[in-house]
């Protein structure tokens, strides 16, 4: 069905005559001028996104229109769709026209935005063979069109900020802010603050990146603390110090002003207080991990405990399980306990009594950017360190029958 809208029909002619001759006619949810020209916003269906459909035009005139790629202006003269309020001289909405018998359709290059107002202007006199103001239908028809607006009630919230533990290292490099639904493109720099014990905002704690560090569904944003301040011995660090100081407590605050994908504010602010502890400047060392193998014949979780928190994002893809001697990852589900120091793996199929490998990829980092075998801040690498980093290391474990 067609969507409701209002319209006016304006005969072509001297401007002074227009106002007096405005004849609004609404019929069947479409705008119909006295000449029989009707404009309809056809909602999206299985075939196409929402498009503008004009009926009542001269089929001969439509057939006589030139190739639209060669002469798009000829088509735009007949049907011009604009964002409402677009000033004269600005472009019309780009799209393609299609003729279906006596109907002319405009399909926008990009779907119309829900809730946005568009204007359609139809000039039957611009069709080939029609003379301006003649009986071929000289009335210009204007229609205001819009798709229903999305719900405006705020609904999206911050579900968690990683690291999720109560203590953060002084040299924390990276935060993830996770949301309950998709967000807009806007970054977090204007909406996230770190407050000290007295409620004072830490000045410039984050790297002012304007590249887009959202995950693919826009539910997780990465904030880097300014590495120039985190790294010791370089100028920003010496001038401003680290943004977080060991021994103090800070509150991370996410304001509701951060717009979600529908442009709505968040439903609630997010606040969490953490203690900051000494810097972690040691490489990630898988040999220090504790593996708790499950029993054969079960789908119990393999549990791996780390001495300190690791990066939540990387734990989901840089640690895996393989059957010893097999190259494929064992299919299963990864779960990470709050605090990011316990990693669990539940296989899709029961464990068998055999040897397995826990595979750790070199990209794994802790929240301070220390990687497997390589801390974040290092002296110039010597000749030994010039070799490419091994892509992966393995920790062997055995699954045995239940005792």
């Amino acid at each position, binding site marked *: 069905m067609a969507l409701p809208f209002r319209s006016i029909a304006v005969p072509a002619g001297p401007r002074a005559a227009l106002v007096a001759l405005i004849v609004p006619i609404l019929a069947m949810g479409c705008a119909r001028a006295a000449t029989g020209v009707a404009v309809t916003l056809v909602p999206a269906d299985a075939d196409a996104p929402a498009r503008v459909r004009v009926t009542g035009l001269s089929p001969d005139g439509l057939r006589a229109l030139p190739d*639209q*790629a060669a002469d798009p*202006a000829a088509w735009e003269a007949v049907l011009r*769709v*604009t*964002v409402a309020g677009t000033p004269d*001289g*600005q*472009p*019309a*909405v*780009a*799209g393609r026209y299609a003729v279906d018998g006596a109907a002319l359709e405009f399909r926008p*290059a*990009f779907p119309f*935005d829900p809730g*946005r107002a568009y204007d359609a202007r139809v000039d039957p006199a611009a069709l080939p063979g029609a003379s301006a103001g003649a009986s071929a239908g000289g009335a210009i028809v204007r229609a205001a069109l819009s798709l229903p607006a999305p719900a405006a009630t705020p609904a999206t919230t911050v579900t968690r900020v990683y690291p999720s533990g109560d203590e953060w290292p002084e040299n924390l490099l990276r935060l993830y802010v996770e949301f309950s639904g*998709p*967000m*807009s*493109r806007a970054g977090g720099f204007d909406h996230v603050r770190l407050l000290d014990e007295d409620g004072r905002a830490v000045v410039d704690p984050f*790297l*002012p990146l*304007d*590249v887009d*560090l959202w995950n*693919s*569904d826009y539910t*997780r944003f*990465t904030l880097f603390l*300014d*590495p*120039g301040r985190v790294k010791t*011995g*370089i*100028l*920003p660090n010496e001038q401003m110090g680290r943004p977080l100081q060991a021994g103090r407590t800070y509150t991370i605050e996410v304001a509701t002003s951060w717009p*979600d*994908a529908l*442009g709505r504010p968040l439903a609630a602010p997010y606040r969490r207080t953490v203690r900051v502890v000494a810097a972690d400047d040691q490489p990630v060392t898988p040999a220090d991990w504790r593996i708790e193998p499950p029993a054969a014949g079960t789908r119990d979780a393999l549990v791996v405990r780390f001495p300190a928190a690791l*990066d939540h*994002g*990387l734990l989901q*893809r*840089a*640690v*895996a399980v393989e059957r010893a001697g097999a190259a494929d*990852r064992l299919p299963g589900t990864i779960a990470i306990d709050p605090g990011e120091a316990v990693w669990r793996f539940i296989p899709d199929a029961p464990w068998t009594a055999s040897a397995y490998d826990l*595979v750790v*990829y070199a*990209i794994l*980092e802790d929240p301070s950017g220390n*990687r497997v075998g390589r801390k974040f*801040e*290092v*002296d110039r*690498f010597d000749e030994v360190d*010039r070799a*490419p980093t091994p*892509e992966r290391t393995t920790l062997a474990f055995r699954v045995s029958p239940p005792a």
Partner: protein
Amino acid sequence: MRTAPALAAVLGLVAAAATATAIVSARTEPAPRGLDPLAVPSHVGPTFQSIGPLAFSPEGVLYAADKQAAAIHALDLTAAASPAPGTKGIDGIDQQIAAMLGTAASDLAITDLAVHPKTRNTYLSVMRGQGPSAQSALLRVDGAGTLSLVALDAVTFTSVSLPNPPAVDGRNRTSAITDMAYMNGRLFVAGLSNEEFSSKLWSVPYPFRQMDTGTSVEIFHGNHGRLETNSPVYSFVPTTVDGKPSLIAGYTCTPLVRFPVDDLRPGAKVMGKTIAELGNRSRPIDMILYRKDGREFLLIANTTRGVMKLDTSTFDGAGAITAPVTAETGGVPFEPVPSMTGVEQLDLLDATHTVVLSRTGAALNLQAVILP
């Protein structure tokens, strides 16, 4: 984006007021790829999950990065050429783009700008909309100041995928490709991800070939004496330093680092030589090389420290910065360009002009500016 400076003719910088056409139509046949059995087959109508940054080869192949798909598409724009060479500036270009794409300027992101090295038309990559439903658009501005939407469904292209780090299941990782540049038959790509902070530089030969996924190197900038640090490269240009093909790379906060291309071997860790510190809490946006008065210059647009001009002859024999820089800046000299303000994108237009996207108050303007 940047291309190596090339000869430029007198360009169509004079024309009527900005007008708009709906869609550039480009009907092309797959380009012949010779007899190379490993040649990547070309197709028509690339689909983008996201678009930008952009880079041109000297022949006019447009490389357009799709970070969501972790791919780069090489577009043949021959058939999409405008009859009006050059680029005429458009004030309030974001408003015009929004009108053409049927949305509001606040729902657009212009992700990059690149000038076609032969036609001198300017191409803009744009994300329309917000969140995961945002869509990609490529637009062109010609010498008549006409803004056009490039009909991607008619463009011939080849594609190559970025190498995935191990064990990627694609759920969370985003590769933000920060810059690309073509040099001597290879496309160089710099980027960072939201999960792995260390900087990678990747290169692949063009024409793209099957079985060649490119080479990846880990790069560091050495500075301040004892430290080497990993940090994302934001912008780089290929040039020659000390007689060797090199990349000059700008990092956040803002060391300028030189890497000899010959050192960039697969799997290697390469430490660059820091030749300048251009000031903290800033990052380079774009770099271009140009010649003026018989000398070559590097022009750098920065986020908070404006536009800077460096004479590249000072890079030859420049010492590495090996001691803490106690002043705001250090290393090879640079000259601020105070006449260029609010620059958000920059590329070389011709021998005497650069084209910039610059913000003045609320207005985002595309302008041709005389090279300083």
